């Protein structure tokens, strides 16, 4: 569907995107992750033809973005960050204008706008000025805008940034709904969002791809094992440490800060995704410790993300 090769973008001396190569298949929902300034937006902008790459090529279906920008634009629906729509226009007028630009005839236009307003839940705000809308509503208008031509590829730049939790859920629902039929590329720095909505995650740092795959494959490739968090009453660190470390498969036991002297908080890391909860429990059972907390954490995307994108 989309084939990117050696994509590079320089802003004067600063290299924002550094030789990215990527293949995106039809029907994928892709999450582009990365810290601020990693080159996510720049990559998306080059995909849509808004920026010229310094070098490298992008092909969308059979068209090159550089040679056939108009054809490429026709298969892409794009929503820039924070939905910069004309704020002095009424929602309906705006959508009608966009429909005109996409060449809808009079009757087709109305039915298309109606369909989009159902999809994005715009029925009640059709007559409002865009500038008066809340961020979430504006984002929905933006998605309707991007969906106008029924594009095969939808590119959303941080579709949920600045929204409240309810709005985020709504936008995600819309994205999931659309994603049943379309290829979607969305950038975000909210990791749980990428995990919740995307089939495939691409982590970018300093203009380079540092991880690419489903959440599961990324987690497996970045193996750091499970962590069991314990909070024990009447436990003394040295003895607890010694007894737990005797269990096979335990890599490390770390002490965590605790509120009271009597309570000991530790984090036990296990190797290779082993589930050692039973063994740990048995050890505790045979000792005069009282369990206040006991839970296992698999390595979160957050940790992987931090590992991959932090300096050094």
């Amino acid at each position, binding site marked *: 569907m989309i084939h990117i090769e050696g994509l590079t973008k320089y802003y004067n001396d600063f290299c924002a995107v550094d030789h990215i190569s990527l293949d995106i298949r039809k029907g994928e929902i892709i999450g582009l992750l990365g810290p601020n300034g990693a080159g996510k937006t720049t990559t998306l*902008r080059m995909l*849509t*033809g*808004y*920026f*010229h790459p310094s070098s490298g090529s992008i092909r969308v279906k059979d068209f090159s973005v550089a040679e056939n920008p*108009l054809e490429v*634009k*026709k298969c*892409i629906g*794009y929503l*820039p*960050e*924070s939905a*910069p*729509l*004309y*704020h*002095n*226009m009424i929602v309906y*007028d705006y959508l009608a*204008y*966009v429909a*005109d*630009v*996409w*060449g809808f005839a009079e009757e087709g236009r109305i039915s298309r706008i109606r369909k989009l307003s159902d999809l994005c839940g715009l029925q009640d705000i059709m007559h409002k000025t865009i500038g008066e809308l809340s961020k979430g509503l504006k984002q929905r208008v933006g998605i309707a*805008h991007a969906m106008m*031509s029924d594009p095969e590829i939808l590119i959303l730049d941080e579709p949920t940034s600045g929204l409240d939790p309810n709005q985020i859920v709504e936008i995600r629902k819309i994205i999931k709904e659309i994603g049943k039929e379309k290829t979607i590329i969305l950038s975000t720095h909210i990791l749980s969002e990428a995990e919740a909505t995307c089939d495939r995650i691409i982590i970018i740092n300093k203009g380079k791809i540092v991880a690419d795959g489903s959440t599961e494959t990324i987690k497996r490739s970045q193996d750091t094992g499970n962590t069991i968090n314990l909070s024990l009453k009447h436990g003394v660190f040295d003895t607890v440490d010694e007894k737990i470390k005797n269990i096979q498969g335990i890599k490390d036991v770390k002490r965590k800060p605790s509120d009271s002297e009597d309570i000991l908080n530790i984090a036990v890391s296990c190797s290779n995704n082993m589930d050692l909860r039973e063994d740990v429990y048995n050890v505790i059972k045979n000792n005069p410790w009282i369990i206040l907390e006991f839970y296992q954490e698999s390595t979160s995307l957050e940790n992987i993300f931090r590992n991959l994108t932090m300096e050094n």
Partner: protein
Amino acid sequence: MQQVKNIFKKELKDYFTSPIAYIVITIFLLVTGWFFFMTFFLNNQANLRNYYGLLPFTFAFVIPAITMRLFSEEMSIGSYEILLTMPVTFSDIILGKFLAGTAFVAAMLLPTLSYPITISFVGQLDLGPVIGGYTGAVLLGASYTAIGLFASSLTRNQIVAFIIGLLICFFLTLIDKMLLFFPGSIVKVIGYIGADYHFQNISKGIVDTRDILYFASLIFLGLYGTALVMAEKK
């Protein structure tokens, strides 16, 4: 062509939904009306010469104010990105915006048609200069719009766009009044650059291809410059 029409329609509608348009029109009509009728009865002549004499100056002030938002606003709110990722070309955008600006200038001139109509009641009005004058005014307005559009494409700040547009238009309006300061050998060339000079020719009712060509090249330069700036921004 359809896309030019779409953008033209949207921009023109934008003009008339914002209060700025009406404020600008009001100021324009007040200023031209005041200066025209202030001396009209003293001169006791049934012509529009006073009105035409002042028009390039008022245009130099008013038109950059009309055109300043065309690109600057899009860039500052970010809708420029949306515009460029829709299935339109640079020339669609530029032509659409330019024609909308020109149409707005023409709409602004429309109420001033009441001047020749009133004058025709009080004296013998020669139609030639009136027709020539309005043709010239539209051409001059279109040229300044093209320049204003170019100024607007340079910056995301509307005030800066206004000032740049104002400077260029003012320069073109005034340059042929300052021929005194230039050496004799280039006086003719400098004189030719002046927009006022060409406008006054047309407003006498003499339609000369040289004057038409002058305005056409101004428009072309403004629009071409805008296209270059847009290409550079990518």
